[in-house]
C-alpha cells in the first residue's frame, strides 16, 4: 500500500496533467473542467455519510466562476506555470490546475492511493509541477502563504503569479490582512479571490468597505458576467499584478444556489453561437465529463484505505520512525539490563 510520497508530483500519482496550453482548446478544456467540477460537487453530496469527508469539504460550493478564474492563469503542469491554492477541498480550481476527478476523490476520501496517502485533511495537497499548493486549516493563512509564493516569483524575476481562493469570512482574520499587506508592500503578483461559499448558518459580519483599500490593493468585483468576459477581466488583473501593480482582490458576489453553474451553460451557448468550439464537442462534453466522474466514483469504491502503520510516515527528513513499543514484543526487564521500550534492545 503506498503511503503517499513526501511531496506529490503528478508523475507519481495518476496520469500526467491534463492541462493544455492556452490557445484554441482552452474553452473546450474550461467547459470540460467545469462540468467535471459540477459533477464532482454533486457526487460528494452523494457519498457523504458513506465515507468520511474532511470537515472542510463543505467548502466545495464554489461555482463556475472559479473555473474561469483558474483558467485565466498560466497553467502548465511542468512546474513553470502559475501557482494556485484552491481553498480547502474545492474541486474546480484543483481540476483546472490539472488534477483528475479520481485523484481528487482519493484525496478527499482519504484513500491510501491518494496524493498524501490519506494523511492530510482539507485539500492539503501540494503538487509542484501542476502548481497546486495545498490549504491549511485557518482561513486567511493561505493568503499569507501565497503572498510568499508570489514574492518568490518576483524575487527570481519569473513571470508567474499566485492565485488563492478564500471564503468571504477569511477577511475577518488578522492573518489575511497581514498576508495582503505584505504582498502589497512587496508589490507581489498575487490574486486573492474572496469567494462566496457556504456559511454555517450565520450571515457574514458586514464588511462595510473594501478590505483591500488600506493596502492600495486593486479590487475586481465579479457578478454574473459571461465566463468569456470574466476570463478577460481576470487575465487583465493578472497582467496588472505581474506588471508591478501589486495584488488584486477579486470579490465574487454571491449567486443563488441554482445559479452556481449557469455560467457554464451560457458559455456553451456562446461557443455554439460564435462557433468557438465544434458543435459535436459541445454536445458530448457534459456527458463525457459526468461519465468521467461516474467512472472515478466506481473506481474509487474499489480503492483501499491506508493501513494503520502508514501513519508512521516521517514528519522530519531522514527520521526513521518505529511503531509504539507497546505494539512490538516487549523486552524483559532485568537489573541494569538496557531497557528500550521505544523499540528493540539497545546494545
Amino acid at each position: 500500500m503506498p503511503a503517499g510520497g513526501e511531496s506529490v508530483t503528478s508523475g507519481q500519482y495518476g496520469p500526467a496533467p491534463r492541462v493544455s496550453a492556452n490557445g484554441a482548446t482552452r474553452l473546450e478544456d474550461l467547459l470540460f473542467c467545469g462540468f467535471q467540477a459540477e459533477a464532482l460537487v454533486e457526487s460528494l453530496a452523494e457519498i457523504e455519510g458513506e465515507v468520511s469527508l474532511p470537515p472542510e469539504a463543505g467548502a466545495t460550493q464554489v461555482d463556475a466562476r472559479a473555473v474561469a478564474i483558474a483558467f485565466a492563469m498560466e497553467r502548465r503542469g511542468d512546474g513553470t506555470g502559475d501557482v494556485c491554492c484552491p481553498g480547502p477541498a474545492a474541486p474546480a480550481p484543483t481540476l483546472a490546475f490539472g488534477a483528475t476527478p479520481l485523484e481528487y476523490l482519493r484525496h478527499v476520501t482519504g484513500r491510501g492511493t491518494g496524493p498524501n496517502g490519506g494523511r492530510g485533511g482539507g485539500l492539503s495537497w501540494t503538487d509542484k509541477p501542476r502548481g497546486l499548493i495545498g490549504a491549511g486549516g485557518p482561513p486567511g493563512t493561505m493568503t499569507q502563504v501565497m503572498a510568499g509564493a508570489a514574492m518568490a516569483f518576483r524575487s527570481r524575476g519569473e513571470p508567474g503569479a499566485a492565485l488563492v481562493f478564500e471564503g468571504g469570512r477569511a477577511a475577518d482574520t488578522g492573518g489575511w490582512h497581514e498576508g495582503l499587506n505584505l504582498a502589497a508592500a512587496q508589490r507581489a503578483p498575487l490574486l486573492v479571490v474572496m469567494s462566496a461559499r457556504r456559511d454555517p448558518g450565520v450571515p457574514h459580519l458586514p464588511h462595510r468597505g473594501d478590505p483591500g483599500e488600506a493596502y492600495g490593493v486593486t479590487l475586481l468585483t465579479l457578478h454574473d458576467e459571461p465566463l468569456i468576459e470574466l476570463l478577460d477581466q481576470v487575465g487583465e488583473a493578472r497582467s496588472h499584478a505581474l506588471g508591478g501593480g501589486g495584488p488584486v482582490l477579486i470579490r465574487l458576489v454571491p449567486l443563488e444556489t441554482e445559479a452556481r453553474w449557469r455560467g457554464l451553460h451560457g458559455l456553451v451557448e456562446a461557443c455554439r453561437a460564435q462557433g468557438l468550439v465544434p458543435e459535436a464537442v459541445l454536445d458530448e462534453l457534459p456527458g463525457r465529463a459526468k461519465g468521467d466522474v461516474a467512472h472515478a466514483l466506481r473506481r474509487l469504491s474499489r480503492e483501499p484505505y491506508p493501513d494503520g502503520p502508514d501513519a508512521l510516515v516521517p514528519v522530519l527528513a531522514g527520521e526513521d520512525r518505529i511503531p509504539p513499543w507497546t505494539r512490538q514484543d516487549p523486552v524483559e526487564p532485568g537489573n541494569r539490563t538496557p531497557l528500550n521500550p521505544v523499540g528493540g534492545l539497545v546494545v
Partner: protein
Amino acid sequence: MSERPPHVSKTQAGEPVTFLEAISEALWEEMERDESVFLLGEDIGIYGGAFKVTRDFLDHFGSGRVVDTPISEGGFTGAAAGAAHMGLRPVVEIQFMDFISPAYDVITNYIATSRYRGSGALPLVIRGPVGGGNRGGPFHSQNVEMAFFHTPGLKIVYPSTARDAKGLLKSAVRDDDPVLFEEHKGLYRAPYLREVLPDDDFVVPIGEARVAREGSDLTIVTYGMMVHRALDAARLLESDGIDVEVLDLRTLLPLDEARIVASVQKTGKLLIVHEDTRTGGIAGEIAMRVNERAFEWLDGPILRVTSIDSPVPYSSSLEDYFLPAVEDIVTAGRYLGRY
C-alpha cells in the same frame, strides 16, 4: 426572556444528561446566576455553535450576552481580556480548539501575565472541543494542553465525565484566573457517559485529581478520553492479577502533585497515558515531579502510552493506529506489573 429550553432542563427534570448537555447546563446556570457572565465565539448565537452547545442561548440571553464574533480568535480572546478588566466574566468558545492557536499570543503574553504584571486578575474561560477519533484530520482533532501547560498564570481543565464537566465548568466560570477548558468531542454524546446529576448548584474544585479506580499494584495517571481506555485496560489487567489504580487528573494545571505522589507511594509503579502526542507531552512533568518527591518509592521505570509524534492523520485507519489503544495500555501495564 424565553423559558428554559428542554435540552438545558434535563437535570431539573431528573433526567440523565450527556457530557455535552452537562456543559450547556453549566453555562446556562452560570449565566442565570451571574449577570457578568457572557459568551463570545464564532457561530455560537444564531447557529448555536458548531456542536450546538449554546443552542437557544441567543434567544434567551440576547445579543449583548451571546456575541457572534468574526473569525478572529486572537481578536475576540483579547476582547474577552478587556471585558474581564471591566469586571465581566467572559466565556470564549473556540470552535475547534485547534484554532486557539491564533490566540496563542494574547493568551500567553497578555492574559497569563496580567496578575503578575500588576494588571489584576483576568477571570475568563476559554473552552472548546478537542481530541481525535472523529476523522477530523490534522486541523480538527488536536489536544492543546501542551501549548499552554508551560505558561505560568493559566489553569487547564480537561474533564472526563458529565458530572466533572458541569462542576468544573462552573468552577472555571467562578475562578478569578484564566482557565482553558478542554472538551473531548468523543465524549460529547457518548451514551456511556449519560448520568443523572444532582439538581443543586454543585461545583467540582479545580486542581484536584480523582481516583477513578482504586488499586495497589500500578498507578495509571491519565485524563479525558484516555480515562475510559485506562479503565478498560484496568479491567483486563485484573485477570493478570495486576490491580490498577486509575487517577483522572481532571485539572492539568496546576497539577495535583500530592495525589499523584500519594498514589505512586502506594503502588511503586507509574504509567502515564495521554492522547496527546508523545514528545513534550505532560508525562514529562509528571515524571519530574515524581522524581523530585517519590523517587525512592519507584519499583520500575516511569513509562507512558501516548499518540505517535505526528499531526493527527485523516483516514480512520491511520487515526486509529495513531491514537493510544486499550491494548497498548494493557501491554505497558503487564510490562510494569511483571517488573
